[in-house]
């Protein structure tokens, strides 16, 4: 267990992440390329959705990552609150714009898909509304980091915001089960095989999900390294000003 805490050392984190990054980024590009080409060109239309079923390869992975990114930020924020490791707070900060973009992709592709299927771009359905509020939390989280000059205070306040926002991350995932109402269907993927989409769509969808997960990991590794360097630069500049 002690092994993981060695990455709380910024230098160790940067050294390790720079060794991993080319492999993770390469695998992400490969999975996204294969998954999207497979899904777009080589899968048939679905009986119920027609050609719009091809949107699933973007909508489902993006929505999953939007919610998962917030949970990653929650874990990193809790580590900051409990153990005061700067790298974990900076990792949460680094993940937020990636999660926000995933949320936008989920919202945009959902609206575009919803129009022909439901006859409307948007409905105040529990799942959609929770997801929109999650997006607003992402914006608030990013803005709060940018608004506070002292890094430790910013990390404290954003960690609390992250705890509060987790309610909407949970609701985005489970609102369909909690309220059993609204336009949005249930999960496309499940441990219960009967609930899954048909195999012909399922396998390329899994490849796309792997691609989105790896893309997220690659971006967070790179962006955390950038945040660590930016923090060091702020410290050095502050020392210069004090001379």
């Amino acid at each position, binding site marked *: 267990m002690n092994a993981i805490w060695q990455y709380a050392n910024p230098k160790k984190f940067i050294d390790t992440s720079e060794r991993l990054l080319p492999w993770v980024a390469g695998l992400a590009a490969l999975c996204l390329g294969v998954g999207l080409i497979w899904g777009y060109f080589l899968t048939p239309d679905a009986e119920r959705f027609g050609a719009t079923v091809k949107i699933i390869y973007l909508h489902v992975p993006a929505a999953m990552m939007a919610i998962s990114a917030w949970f990653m930020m929650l874990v990193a924020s809790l580590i900051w609150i409990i153990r005061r490791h700067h790298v974990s707070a900076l990792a949460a900060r680094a993940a937020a714009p*990636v999660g926000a973009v995933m949320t936008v992709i989920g919202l945009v592709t959902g609206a575009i898909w919803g129009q022909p299927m439901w006859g409307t771009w948007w409905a105040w359905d529990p799942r959609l509304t929770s997801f929109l509020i999650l997006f607003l939390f992402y914006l608030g989280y990013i803005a709060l980091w940018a608004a506070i000059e002292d890094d430790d205070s910013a990390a404290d306040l954003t960690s609390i915001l992250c705890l509060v926002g987790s309610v909407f991350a949970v609701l985005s995932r489970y609102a369909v089960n909690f309220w059993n109402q609204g336009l949005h269907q249930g999960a496309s993927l499940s441990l219960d095989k009967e609930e899954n989409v048909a195999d012909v769509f399922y396998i390329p969808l899994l490849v796309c999900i792997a691609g989105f997960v790896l893309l997220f990991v690659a971006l967070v590794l790179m962006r955390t390294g*950038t945040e660590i360097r930016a923090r060091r630069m702020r410290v050095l500049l502050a020392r*210069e000003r004090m001379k």
Partner: protein
Amino acid sequence: MMPDLGKYAVEVLASYGASIALIVALVVLSVARARRVRAELETVEKRSRQDG
């Protein structure tokens, strides 16, 4: 080998176009910031070493 998207061509192409544009923008901005911050830090560290 282009799939026939029928009456949903606009929806499917708009979804792919918007998503790929957002992902590419995110990657490009992240890489550009990483390079800029790395270069700026090197300058500041060099100056800091020279000043003792």
